[in-house]
């Protein structure tokens, strides 16, 4: 694995994980608010 390949993999996984953590957090917050109502 080349150095650039390693850094690309790190960047892609960090962005992927960040977006999905945001998505799951948003969904969880929404469910909690809807249940409260």
């Amino acid at each position: 694995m080349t150095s650039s390949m390693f850094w690309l993999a790190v960047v892609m996984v960090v962005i992927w994980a960040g977006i999905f953590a945001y998505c799951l957090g948003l969904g969880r917050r929404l469910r909690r608010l809807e249940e409260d109502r």
Partner: protein
Amino acid sequence: MTWLLGVWLAGVIVAGLLWAPAAAGFQGDSFRIVFFHVPQAWVAVLAFCVNLVASIRYLRTRSALDDSRAGAAARLGLLFALLATITGSIFAKLEWGMFWNWDPRETSILVLLLVYAAYFALRQAVADEERRASLAAAYAVFAFVTMPFLVFVVPRVYASLHPDLVEAAEGVVRFRMDPRLRLVLLASLAGFTGLFVWLYSLEVRLARVLAARRREES
């Protein structure tokens, strides 16, 4: 839905890094960032289009829901434009040795980020909800006018280091890519579009619930 998109985009990462063949004319594997960079830029453009439509609808209907839609679309547009800028600067570092070169493409995306950052500064600056929504909607229409110039025209008018994926010859537009690279890119475009639809619907639902809660409290 979230898990399906998660698995789909994880598949895109694996295919982009391990299955797609090397592209000629690039340093090492820097070109592989295209599988994330281009879909992020596409989703940003899509989100700004949705922001425009929702803003025009707000100006016609004065519905708070349309204002929520416009705000959610602009937020996602700014997020994905920022991600496209970050991945683009990583490509620049791997390819040209510097994260930022003030290339026309880099400069125009920075101006676009500032234009839409000002949209949120405007929203934060006005306390009255109806006035804020009206001003933001009017601003969004003007902000959108700059988008096609900054994304599609400026980088093609001035000489740019930025590689172009498509070529137009004799009226026919073609992808300049290996079929396997193209397949991974299209899969990524589909995944990111699905992600935008999912995030947008969550953001709009959240804005509606928060607005209803504010109404109940006041």
